[in-house]
């Protein structure tokens, strides 16, 4: 019972107040990598705790420990009477664990396949339609007047796509800064960080923290790439390029749900123009340790029996 309660409480805390707090705090903008790791740990730990709580509840009448309990459940399922000895709540817990696992794993698989397929299709088209950009190996120029820059990450053939409109709008220094930003994405495979959160968002869009996490993670990888580009380019050059590209296409922008002063773009520009003081070294360290603890806790609760009654 302790396991069920512990895991439920952990899942509850990770799903409700923690993401809200983390989304509101500004320190991740000063240490994006630490912030990203913490978000990943929260996502993983809440999933583990949520599924684990359901399973622990399901096998409660069979055994007080989760693993032997699951073993019994498997044995009696093979014997042809899977629900023997289970009450209504136990069956509900089992259903919850199955549905949640299916939803999470299925969402990830679907998102991965969809992303890979769409990326391959787009890269094929880009290679056919866009011309190479001599200054950068993976860069291509798409002949279109609207300003736009993006990357198609990939293991072997990543592509950074600039529109002709972008080259027209920006000067050489700014273009180089944009390329450095995009190359940082493709080199560090930031897309792999976003993918699970995008999958989660597709699978459970009505859960408030999921939307928050997706939004925060998307912004933090941009800041990470901004920081990377600023190692070889001036911050102001990148900030100007960012504003130029964003505002030049304002005519086609959909109405945003974000308030103008708190949007991720404004945050990016502000920290480029006026870089915040670096964080004290202990804070990112504390974030990494917290992330480790978050993943260790549900694992511990699942594997190690807290109740030693037989």
């Amino acid at each position, binding site marked *: 019972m302790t396991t069920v309660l512990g895991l439920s409480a952990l899942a509850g805390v990770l799903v409700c107040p923690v993401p809200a707090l983390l989304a509101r705090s500004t320190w991740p903008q000063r240490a994006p990598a630490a912030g990203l790791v913490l978000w990943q740990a929260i996502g993983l730990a809440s999933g583990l705790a949520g599924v684990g709580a359901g399973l622990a509840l399901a096998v409660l009448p069979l055994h007080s420990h989760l693993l032997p309990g699951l073993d019994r459940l498997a044995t009696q399922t093979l014997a042809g009477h899977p629900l023997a000895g289970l009450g209504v709540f136990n069956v509900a817990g089992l259903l919850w664990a199955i549905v949640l696992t299916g939803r999470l794993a299925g969402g990830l698989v679907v998102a991965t396949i969809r992303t890979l397929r769409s990326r391959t299709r787009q890269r094929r088209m880009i290679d056919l339609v866009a011309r190479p950009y001599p200054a950068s190996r993976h860069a291509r120029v798409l*002949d*279109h007047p609207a300003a736009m*820059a993006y990357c198609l990450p990939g293991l072997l053939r990543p592509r950074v796509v600039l529109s002709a409109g972008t080259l027209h709008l920006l000067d050489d220094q700014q273009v180089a800064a944009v390329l450095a930003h995009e190359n940082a994405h493709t080199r560090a495979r930031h897309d792999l960080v976003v993918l699970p959160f995008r999958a989660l968002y597709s699978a459970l869009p009505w859960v408030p923290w999921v939307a928050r996490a997706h939004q925060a993670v998307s912004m933090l990888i941009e800041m990470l790439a901004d920081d990377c580009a600023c190692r070889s380019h001036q911050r102001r050059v990148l900030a100007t390029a960012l504003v130029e590209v*964003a505002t030049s296409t304002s005519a*086609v922008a959909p109405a945003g749900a974000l308030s103008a002063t708190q949007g991720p773009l*404004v945050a990016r520009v502000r920290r480029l*123009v*006026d870089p915040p003081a670096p964080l004290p070294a202990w804070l990112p360290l504390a974030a990494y340790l917290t992330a480790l603890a978050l993943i260790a806790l549900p694992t511990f609760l699942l594997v190690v029996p807290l109740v030693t009654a037989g």
Partner: protein
Amino acid sequence: MVTQRNSVPVARLGDLERAVMETLWDLTADWDLTAATSDGGGRGVLRTATARQVSDRLGATRPLAYTTVLTVLDRLERKGLVRRLREGRAHRYAPIATREAYAAKLMLDALGRASDRDAALVRFVDAVSPEEAEVLRRALLGDSPDRQESGP
């Protein structure tokens, strides 16, 4: 009609496909509105070119074997980029859509209006609303009214 003549060496198959496709686009640049077919959707169809014409046009800038051109056209047809039409004993080829149409489609995808549910591409910036554009321009000037100056 914008024509990009680039001088990239034809090395990989992807480059070959691009070169052949570009040549085909150039050769069939003019719309032939009179030859509308049933699946032309009222837009008319593109003019066609033979593999020989493509090979000859390509040969002016880079020599490619005729059979290579045929192979590449075959691949392009299988990929759904080119349509092959039989005319007597010869085949004629037509692009399924113009280069501009593909570029416009890619831009639309990139701007996220076609599908926003996959993580295929990572945009440099998202387009913004007019009022956010104003806030961005002010932020660029270092004007951040909601934050106290803290750094040195």
